[in-house]
C-alpha cells in the first residue's frame, strides 16, 4: 500500500478512524447482545447493569421454540431472496435497455421509474391491498414479492444503469464482431462486468424486503405468513415489552443477511480485471 510506505502517520490515522467508527457501529450490537443474555428484570435495572450476573440463553430458546421462529424464517428468506434475485435481474435488463438503446421517450421512462420510488408506502398500501385481494394474492408470499418488487425495481434499474454505463461500448462492439446478439452481449459481457453492482442490488433488495414492516403487516393476516421482522415488532406490545426476547429476535433476524453477504462478497469485490480488456 503506497500510502503506508510513504506516510506511516496515514496508516495510524486510518486505523484510529476505523476504531472510532467501529465503536459507533458496534456498540449498539454489543448492547443488544448483552441484553439478550440477561434476565428480564436484570435488563431493566438502574443503575445500568453492563454484564449479566448470570448469562442465560433463555430468550433465544423462547424465541425459537415457543414462538415458531422457524416458519417466520422460512417466509422471510423465501420472500426476500426472491425479491432480491428478481429485482436485480429485471433491473439489470431495464438498466441495459436504458443504457444501450436510444429509446424514444427514454428520459420520460427513466423519470417514471424513479418517480414510482417516491410514492410514500402509506398511500399505496391501502389500494394495493384491494388489488391483491381482487386477484386472490392476499396473504400469499407471491403477493408480498410483487409488492416488494415495486419498491426495489426503481433503484435496481437506476443503480445498474449507472454501472452498465461504465462498461465501455467498445466491448459490446467486440462481442458483436464475434457474432453475439443483444441478449448475448447482455449475459456474456455486461453482466459479469457489473457483478459488483448486481451484488449490491441483491443485498439491498434482500435487506429491504427482510426489514419491511408496513407491507407485511397489511398484506398478510395468517400466522403461516408472518415474517421475522413482523414477529419481532409484535414482541413490542402495548402492555409489555420483553427486552431480552426482542434483542435476541433482532440479532437472530440479522444472521441471514450476514450469511448472504458472506456468500456474495467475493463478487462484490471483484474488479474489472477478469477477461475484459483481453482482445
Amino acid at each position: 500500500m503506497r500510502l503506508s510506505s510513504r506516510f506511516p502517520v496515514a496508516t495510524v490515522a486510518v486505523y484510529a478512524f476505523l476504531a472510532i467508527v467501529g465503536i459507533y457501529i458496534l456498540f449498539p450490537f454489543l448492547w443488544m447482545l448483552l441484553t439478550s443474555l440477561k434476565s428480564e428484570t436484570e435488563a431493566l435495572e438502574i443503575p445500568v447493569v453492563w454484564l449479566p450476573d448470570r448469562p442465560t440463553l433463555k430468550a433465544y430458546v423462547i424465541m425459537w421454540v415457543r414462538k415458531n421462529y422457524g416458519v417466520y424464517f422460512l417466509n422471510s428468506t423465501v420472500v426476500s431472496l426472491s425479491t432480491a434475485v428478481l429485482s436485480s435481474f429485471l433491473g439489470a435488463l431495464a438498466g441495459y435497455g436504458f443504457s444501450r438503446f436510444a429509446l424514444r421517450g427514454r428520459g420520460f421512462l427513466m423519470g417514471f421509474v424513479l418517480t414510482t420510488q417516491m410514492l410514500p408506502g402509506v398511500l399505496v398500501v391501502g389500494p394495493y391491498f384491494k388489488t391483491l385481494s381482487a386477484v386472490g394474492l392476499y396473504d400469499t408470499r407471491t403477493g408480498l414479492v410483487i409488492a416488494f418488487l415495486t419498491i426495489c425495481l426503481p433503484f435496481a434499474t437506476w443503480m445498474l444503469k449507472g454501472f452498465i454505463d461504465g462498461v465501455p461500448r467498445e466491448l459490446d462492439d467486440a462481442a458483436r464482431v464475434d457474432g453475439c446478439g443483444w441478449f448475448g452481449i447482455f449475459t456474456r459481457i455486461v453482466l459479469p462486468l457489473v457483478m459488483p453492482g448486481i451484488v449490491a442490488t441483491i443485498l439491498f433488495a434482500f435487506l429491504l424486503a427482510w426489514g419491511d414492516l408496513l407491507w407485511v403487516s397489511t398484506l398478510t393476516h395468517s400466522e403461516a405468513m408472518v415474517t421475522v421482522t413482523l414477529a419481532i415488532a409484535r414482541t413490542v406490545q402495548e402492555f409489555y415489552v420483553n427486552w431480552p426476547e426482542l434483542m435476541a429476535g433482532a440479532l437472530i433476524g440479522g444472521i441471514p443477511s450476514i450469511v448472504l453477504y458472506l456468500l456474495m462478497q467475493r463478487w462484490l469485490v471483484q474488479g474489472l480485471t477478469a477477461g475484459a480488456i483481453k482482445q
Partner: protein
Amino acid sequence: MTVAAPWLRPGAWGSRLRDRTVGYLFVAPAVLLLAVVLAYPAFTSLRLSFSEQGSPVNLGLVQYRLLLRSSLFWQVVRQTGVFVAASVAAHVILGMLLAMILNRPLAGRTPLRIMVLLPWVVPDVVAGIVWKWILNPLYGVLNDVLLRADLIPAPLEWIASPRLALFSVILANIWRGFPFVMVILLAGLQAIPQELYEAAAIDGAGPLASFRSITLPGLRKVLVVALALDTIWEVRRFGLVQAMTGGGPGTMTEVLSTQVFRQYFQFFRFEYASAMAIAMTVLLLVISVPYVRMIVREE
C-alpha cells in the same frame, strides 16, 4: 480506443427500428410491472388528494390550500430538510471514507467488511427502539458512560429535549443508513482500474491529487445515483423516527412521512394525508430533476 469502422457499431446491424424494439423489450418487464401494479394506488391517492373530506365527488384544491396554509406543514418540511440533508451528507462522507479504506488490502479486511455492513441488517423500527433505549435518560447506557466519566453533571435528555431530539434521531439515522451508500461506492470503486492509480503514482501524484483526478471522476455516475437514491429514501424514512420519538417533543421531530402516517392512520384524514403525500412526491421530483438530467444528458 475509438472504433474505426462504423459498421461495427450496434445499430448499424439491422434497421434502427428493430434495435429500438429490442431496447423496449429489455425495458418492458420492469416498466410494465411498475405501471400495472402502482397505477391504481397512485391514481386513487391523486383523486383523494383533490377531494373534500367525506364527499369524494367534489373535486378541488381544498386539501392543498389547507396544506399550504398550515404552519405545521412548513415546519415539518423544514425539519425533514434538516434531517435528510444531515443524514445524506454524513452517509456520503462516512461511506466514501470507509469505501476507500476497504478498497485497499488491509489487515483484517473481511471482518471489517462485515462490521461496516452490520447496522444495515437491523430493521428500521428495531434500530429506533434500540437507540431510544441507549439514549434513555434513566436506563440509557450513553448517559451512564458520560456520567461515570464525569463528562456531564446530570443525565441528558437526548430524546425529550427540544434541542437534542432532532440531533439524536439524526445520529441514529446515520448509524442505520451509511452502509447503503458505502456499498454502492465500494462497488463503484472496484470498477476503477488499479492501473490508473499506479500510473499516477509513477507520475508522482500524491493521494489527494489522485483522489481528485481519478477517484472522483470515476465515481461520478455512481455517486450521483447514490446521492439521489439515498435522498429519496431518507425523505421516506419512517420507522426509525416513529419508534424513537414519535415526532416529539411536541412536533419537533416530525418528518413528512410520520405526518402522513399520523394524518392517515391516526386522524383518519385520508384526503389531507393524500395531498401531503403527493406534495412529498412532488418535492422529491423537484429535488431529483438535476440528478436525472445529469445522468440522462450524458449520453
